[in-house]
């Protein structure tokens, strides 16, 4: 049986190439992501391991747990180091101090996306930052710069270089060395610099050590030194041996990279799903084309099982070959990406994607499983072929099924279930989640119903093309003759475009709402911040603004994260409804903001904040404001008390004074200045909003701000327009990334169109011969195929876009009761449709060429 499968496969491998490409691309995506993630993971682990190498004990602050975006910034008091030094088993000790230090380039512009100052370990026993050239800093004005920055800025030993400190003002240092940075440096664009410990402490205004590394005397074991340290400094720190620390770090790295990996794999799943639709179609066609052969096998004594096996082996082989190809491409691509990323770091050039068994097995498993699973149904149907079919069928291309009742029922069931779920979920606390679930059902319903839509949609869409005459008429008939096939091909595109348009609608509505809110009676005209550096606008500068005559209004805002926990419930009552899924009663991590002095109603409305209960202005009397989603998540109402834990380990509480309508533009908890001060001791604010005084010219204000900010290189100022366009620009970039990631799936969908069409050409060889004999020209025959590709693509994408818009509407309505205004990005959607239509034509060019090149005689001769 296997032999027959193999010979079959060899004889029509050409017909399977497109499907193999589709599966291979999907597998390449998966393997590439896995390879890339493991390269990053390995790099980080290796670097961590080498950093902690020969270190006996590591003392660090205790972590508050894993909250996304929450970084523990607690430190160990400087005095603790002395306590540890007194222990007799200690041979060497290194207290690491670090903090922000952004490098300025020769044009006085900040370099990179961030900068980190780290204290140089004085003892040569600590080898975490090997020198490339030069020496370690010995005096307070000396510095070592990481290799990537060193080369990027074309530095040399002895050169002067300026750093911006936490206070926002620059200082000059002399470069005395070039060091190998930690591996993480290869994956972000932040610089890394080593200063003397005394200078690091001063420059970063650090209040303690980030960690303390200890090397033991040879006579003392790591474990016993660890125990001694614990008994000396107590239980309030995490004290681990070097080996324990490495494995703890590894666990962290693995979980961090696996989050990214999982997020990317979601896109791979979409791509693979689309590829599976291509496989379904290919096998449907292959089976239809070989129905007589299968029937003949049955006549000769093949059992149903044998026919099944014959085809399954073939599908396994297809999956195997495609996966192998995909694995090679996947490793190649991810290796290329890693090489590009690390190209600037010579010391990391050895970093590459290791070809490991994991991704290979995964790739094989996914590729073969998807291929076999998608071919299963067409194959199962093929086993039902009656032996007499071998004698009956005349032509190969059968004009098949009318609309099946079964399909109609499935469609109605999915629609009904979807609607039921959505309606049932309304007004529950999980309405959005339930509605998404219902939406998926309705989506499946639409996909199932697509064969019904083929005829009406194509007739409607092709109406204007009638002027092209007979070729279009024949093309139209061809599109109808196997509606299921046309529908499956189109639905691959529908899925991709549905997702793209859904996200486009959400993003567009989002950025439209931001723009609308910020342009409507905003009480400020300039925004001062440190842009991408996300540090603070120094207090000194803010104080100057406050004193100046140029402004008659100043608001400040700090965005910080904290872990929040409900201490008391306040007036919260559990909503009573059927589908209430229990909410977790655990601390949550959230963004909080603060304002300076009193806040007017103007600022709230500028942010689109509306009170659901309580008064927003209660904020001015020291109360905190929470969003309705926070209220639900924490099960807390007005009068409830929340406990905040900051990244630096400070704890404070606040009482809820108002609940605002849920919205995602501003923060979800707003606290007054007093609460914020108890949590963070920043020497400034993230954002300063300035309102221009009346009677003062704009140009005077602009030059004043410019002038004042000059001594703070990280500070940038924007007017409202640029502030808005920066926000919307970021949203646009996010949309582009999303679209690019889905591009894989869309590309596979177009391979699917080309695939279906070329299979149809083979099937219709005789017909094309007949048409030619009847006087059809080459271009007319080509036109019938192009029409079919164009229509399939147009139809699939149109349905996808419509579903995406409807889905986007649902999402927006469910995530925000008020502040996000639903709007349709006509421009984007139009471009999608246009691109899809053009791509549909491109996908049909090869099949069209093949069809038009068939000689009439050859076409007529091809029987059986």
């Amino acid at each position, binding site marked *: 049986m296997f032999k027959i499968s193999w010979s079959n496969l060899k*004889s029509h491998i050409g017909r399977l190439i497109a499907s193999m490409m589709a599966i291979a691309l999907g597998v390449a995506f998966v393997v590439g992501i896995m390879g890339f993630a493991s390269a990053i993971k390995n790099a980080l682990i290796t670097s961590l391991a080498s950093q902690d190498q020969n270190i006996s004990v590591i003392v660090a602050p205790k972590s508050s747990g894993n909250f996304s975006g929450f970084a523990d910034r607690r430190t160990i008091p400087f005095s603790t180091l002395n306590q540890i030094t007194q222990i007799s088993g200690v041979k060497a000790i290194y207290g690491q101090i670090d903090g922000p230090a952004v490098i300025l380039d020769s044009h006085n512009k900040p370099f990179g996306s961030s900068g980190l100052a780290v204290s140089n370990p004085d003892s040569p026993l600590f080898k975490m930052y090997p020198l490339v050239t030069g020496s370690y800093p010995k005096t307070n004005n000396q510095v070592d710069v990481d290799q990537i920055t060193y080369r990027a800025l074309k530095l040399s030993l002895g050169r002067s270089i300026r750093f911006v400190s936490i206070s926002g003002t620059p200082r000059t240092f002399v470069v005395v060395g070039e060091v190998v940075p930690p591996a993480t440096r290869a994956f972000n664009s932040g610089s890394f610099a080593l200063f003397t410990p005394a200078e690091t402490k001063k420059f970063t205004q650090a209040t303690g050590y980030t960690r303390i590394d200890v090397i033991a005397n040879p006579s003392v074991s790591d474990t016993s030194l660890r125990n001694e340290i614990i008994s000396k400094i107590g239980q309030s720190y995490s004290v681990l041996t070097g080996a324990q620390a490495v494995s703890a770090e590894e666990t962290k790295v693995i979980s961090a990279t696996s989050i990214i990996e999982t997020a990317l794999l979601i896109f791979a799943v979409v791509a693979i799903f689309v590829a599976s639709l291509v496989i379904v179609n290919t096998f449907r066609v292959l089976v239809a084309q070989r129905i007589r052969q299968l029937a003949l096998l049955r006549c000769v004594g093949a059992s149903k099982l044998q026919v099944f096996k014959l085809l399954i082996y073939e599908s396994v082989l297809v999956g195997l070959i495609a996966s192998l190809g995909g694995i090679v491409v996947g490793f190649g691509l991810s290796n290329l990406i890693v090489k590009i990323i690390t190209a600037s770091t010579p010391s990391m050039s050895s970093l590459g994607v290791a070809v490991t068994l994991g991704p290979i097995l995964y790739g094989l498993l996914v590729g073969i499983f998807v291929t076999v699973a998608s071919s299963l149904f067409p194959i199962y149907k093929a086993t039902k072929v009656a032996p007499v079919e071998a004698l009956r069928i005349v032509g190969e291309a059968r004009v098949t099924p009318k609309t099946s009742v079964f399909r109609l029922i499935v469609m109605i069931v999915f629609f009904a279930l979807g609607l039921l779920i959505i309606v049932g979920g309304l007004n529950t606390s999980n309405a959005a989640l339930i509605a998404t679930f219902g939406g998926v059902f309705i989506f499946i319903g639409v996909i199932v119903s697509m064969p019904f839509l083929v005829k009406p949609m194509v007739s409607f869409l092709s109406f204007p093309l009638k002027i092209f005459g007979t070729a279009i008429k024949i093309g139209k008939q061809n599109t109808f003759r196997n509606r299921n096939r046309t529908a499956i091909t189109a639905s691959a595109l529908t899925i991709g475009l549905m997702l793209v348009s859904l996200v486009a609608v959400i993003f567009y509505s989002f950025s439209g709402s931001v723009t609308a809110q910020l342009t409507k009676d905003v009480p400020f005209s300039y925004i001062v911040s440190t842009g991408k550096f996300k540090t603070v606008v120094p207090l000194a500068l803010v104080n100057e603004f406050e004193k100046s005559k140029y402004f008659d209004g100043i608001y400040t805002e700090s965005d910080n994260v904290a872990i929040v926990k409900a201490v008391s419930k306040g007036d919260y009552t559990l909503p009573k409804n059927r589908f209430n899924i229990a909410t977790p009663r655990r601390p949550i991590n959230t963004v909080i903001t603060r304002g300076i002095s009193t806040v007017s109603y103007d600022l709230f409305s500028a942010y689109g904040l509306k009170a659901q209960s309580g008064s927003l202005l209660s904020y001015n009397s020291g109360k905190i404001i929470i969003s309705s989603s926070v209220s639900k998540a924490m099960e807390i109402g007005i009068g409830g008390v929340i406990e905040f834990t900051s990244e630096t380990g400070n704890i404070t509480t606040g009482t809820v004074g108002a609940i605002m309508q849920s919205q995602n533009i501003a923060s979800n908890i707003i606290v007054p200045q007093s609460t914020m001060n108890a949590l963070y001791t920043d020497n400034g604010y993230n954002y300063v909003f300035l309102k221009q005084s009346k009677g003062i010219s704009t140009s005077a204000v602009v030059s004043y701000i410019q002038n004042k900010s000059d001594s703070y290189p990280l500070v940038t100022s924007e007017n409202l327009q640029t502030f808005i366009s920066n926000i919307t620009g970021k949203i646009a970039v996010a949309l582009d990334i999303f679209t690019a990631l889905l591009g894989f799936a869309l590309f596979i969908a177009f391979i699917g169109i080309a695939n279906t069409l070329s299979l149809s050409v083979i099937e219709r060889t005789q017909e094309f011969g007949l048409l030619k004999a009847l006087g059809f020209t080459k271009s007319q025959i080509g036109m019938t195929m192009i029409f079919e590709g164009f229509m399939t693509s147009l139809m699939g994408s149109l349905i996808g876009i419509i579903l995406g818009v409807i889905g986007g509407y649902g999402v927006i309505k469910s995530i925000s009761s008020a502040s996000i205004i639903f709007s349709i990005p006509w421009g984007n959607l139009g471009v999608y449709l246009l691109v899809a239509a053009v791509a549909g034509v491109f996908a049909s060019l090869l099949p069209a060429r093949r069809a038009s090149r068939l000689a009439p005689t050859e076409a007529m001769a091809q029987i059986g």
Partner: protein
Amino acid sequence: MTTQNQGIAPPDSKSEGVSDKPIAVRLSEATKIYGKIGTESAVIAIDRISLTVNSQQFVSIMGPSGSGKSTLLHCAAGLDSLTYGSAFIGDIDITRLSDTSLTKVRRNNIGFIFQAFNLLPTLTAQQNITLPIELASGKLDRDWFDQLVESLAIKDRLNHLPSELSGGQQQRVAAARAMITKPTVLFADEPTGNLDSKSGSQLLQFLKYSTRSLGQTVVIVTHDAKAAANADVVYVVRDGHIDTVVKDPTVDQLLGI
């Protein structure tokens, strides 16, 4: 029902049963109705046909187009199911078998040659011939294989694909395939229909030889009186009934029908 000469007997299995040879095929009241019974579209293709084929007999079925010859053959060979009545291969009632058992019968007891499209295009002639053995996971009888390809004169074409063979060669490969399992009976539906007269008579000579010297039972459907004249018995079908039975026919006799 008309009788043609002294050798003719009614097509009743009981009065046929004088032969000492065992029975290879038996149809009893075989009826096949296409389409939904009782509706306008129902077609009675064969109507209560009973007949018996003895082992090592060469039987021809003739009749006008649309009379039900192919239907008769398909039902007798277990390729299609009867609406009423029963069909036996040897002593197995194939109308009562599950798909699995019927597959086994097709594999072991029946050989079939069609008018065209007999061969799998991706397999060589040899692979096509041995296919039934492979399907049954059986062991190829090498001597039998050699004997078949020798007497069918296809020995030097064994490694060619069907597309590289002439029509006559293809049909002879099909004949070898049909006989490789030494089936109880070989059915052929117009096996010479697509062949020129020389290739056609080569194949018929072989089929006749196989009944005489190899002990094969053969049932063929044909339009060609010359071909039918090779048979021991000719059944003439008209409108789904057996109209005439001719024993030891001559060409002239058959042309007259």
